[in-house]
């Protein structure tokens, strides 16, 4: 199956030297791909480059089989795009925005768009300047989804949405995936990425540092270990791969990365009263790549 989004050495460098420094991506049709990284890591730059909105410094990319550099109009025709912190015309209503967007796409049938608007709870006939941040975000999401695009490129889509709207939005995304649509979204909300995405990309300083399934990332990076001793515990800090050892109320808590053989040997030599080993949350995985930097 052809990749819905493909990038080879995608590079967009700004005058200050920041940007995206060569990214490779292969995202299949019908996949939800989460894109993680702190502010300034290159998430928005990547999405804008995939939309053909910025001129690439190097590399290439295709979206729905269309070259983003030479065929950007076609890319935008088959793609739904949600900018980060989207700006709308304050004197226009959501319905007028919708008419404008669908009109420029040559779509006359409004039924799908209106159904999406109803599910998201968009106030269609109020001027967007009178709407709250969350309600403006709903309008922007509606505009990205209104033409039922093959590919969705969403920059921080759930930003500003209330919990009910987030639920409605996630349900919509899952339905779109079930219909074979491809969704590429950046987010700060790690549980959201964990819930929605099959695979996750982690970007740092303009480079992809990890791309894998959420499960694989969790397995490959860290495991959280809780060990309870009735007597004094051994020194787990000496075990290869162990970090963040903390003891409290007779329980020792730490993380281990990599080969756990040494840990098992120590546990065998000092049998605990109880031991629990769990996969870490995506947030914990993410922090291992960023050393505790905020997202």
């Amino acid at each position: 199956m052809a990749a819905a989004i493909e990038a080879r050495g995608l590079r967009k460098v700004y005058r200050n030297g920041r940007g995206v420094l060569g990214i490779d991506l292969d995202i299949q049709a019908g996949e939800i791909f989460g894109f993680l990284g702190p502010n300034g890591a290159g998430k928005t730059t990547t999405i804008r480059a995939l939309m053909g909105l910025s001129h690439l410094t190097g590399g290439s990319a295709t979206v729905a089989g269309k070259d983003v550099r030479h065929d950007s109009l076609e890319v935008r025709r088959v793609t739904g795009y949600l900018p980060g912190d989207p700006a709308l015309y304050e004197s226009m209503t959501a319905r007028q925005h919708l008419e404008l967007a669908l009109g420029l796409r040559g779509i006359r049938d409004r039924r799908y768009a209106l159904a999406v608007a109803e599910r998201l709870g968009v106030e269609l006939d109020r001027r967007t300047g009178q709407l709250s941040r969350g309600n403006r975000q709903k309008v922007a999401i509606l505009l990205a989804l209104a033409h039922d695009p093959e590919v969705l490129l969403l920059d921080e889509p759930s930003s500003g949405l209330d919990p009910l709207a987030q639920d409605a939005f996630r349900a919509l995304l899952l339905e779109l995936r079930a219909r074979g649509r491809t969704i590429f979204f950046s987010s700060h909300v790690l549980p959201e990425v964990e819930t929605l995405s099959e695979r996750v990309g982690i970007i740092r300083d303009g480079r992809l540092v990890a791309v894998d399934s959420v499960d694989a990332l969790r397995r490959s990076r860290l495991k959280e270990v809780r060990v309870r001793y009735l007597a004094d515990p051994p020194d787990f800090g000496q075990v290869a791969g162990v970090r963040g050892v903390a003891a409290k109320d007779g329980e020792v808590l730490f993380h281990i990365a990599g080969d756990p053989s040494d840990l098992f040997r120590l546990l065998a030599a000092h049998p605990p009263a109880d031991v629990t080993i769990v996969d870490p949350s995506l947030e914990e995985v993410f922090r291992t790549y960023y050393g505790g930097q905020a997202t």
Partner: protein
Amino acid sequence: MTLYRMALRQQFVSWLVWAIVIALGVGTVASAAPAVADSQALVALIRGLPPSFRGLMGGALMVQRPLDGYLYIKLVMYLPLLVGIFTGFQASSLLARELEHRRMDFLLGLPVSRRRLVLERFAALVTAQVAMWVVTIGSLVLLLHGERYPVDVTGYALTGLSGLFVTLVTAAGALWASAGTRDYRTSVRWGLGIAAVPFAYDLAVRIATPGAGWRYILPYGYYDPPHLLLTHAFPWLAVLVLGAATVLLTIGAVRTFERREV
């Protein structure tokens, strides 16, 4: 034409305000003109001015009847320049305002080429200018008709046509300058600066060589207005030269906008 209609709606209020101001201005002139027309005070006053000031007010005044001359000075002569400044502001805002308010991502996230975006928005500006000129010239003609002066529609229309092309080339120049500018204020400064060039040139020529109507051809783009009013000569030179310049500047604006980052 979706973007064209949208841009027209966006500009509608400001152009409507302009049209109302013009109509009110003409009305004010209408109420004041008879007093001026009945007395030769204005003419005498102007005759008494130093030559440089007389030139500043329009050297060909004396060939006009009083009301005609008064209108000529107040409206016909300086209106192209004032409209040009207003238009320079509008044109420089066409793209810069969208960038300033971060709405360009919304527009360019749709299947719209940058070329189409620039051309449709500029076409809306041109349409609004034409409408404004119709209002202006129409008001002038109605005023003259109301004052029972012989109405010279053709002469004023030709003068207005050449003035329109002055504003078009000003708008295209401002558009090009702003197409590569990120900051809104810088863009507007460029627009106003470009619009002020013919105004400054005209002032300089009038002060230096009062009454030399033919010298005004370059900055105004029209033949000496009295010449047009009297002969009804179609301003071919203005239309051709300024029209071509408008097209070239617009192409330059499109290319600049296609190359830039948004």
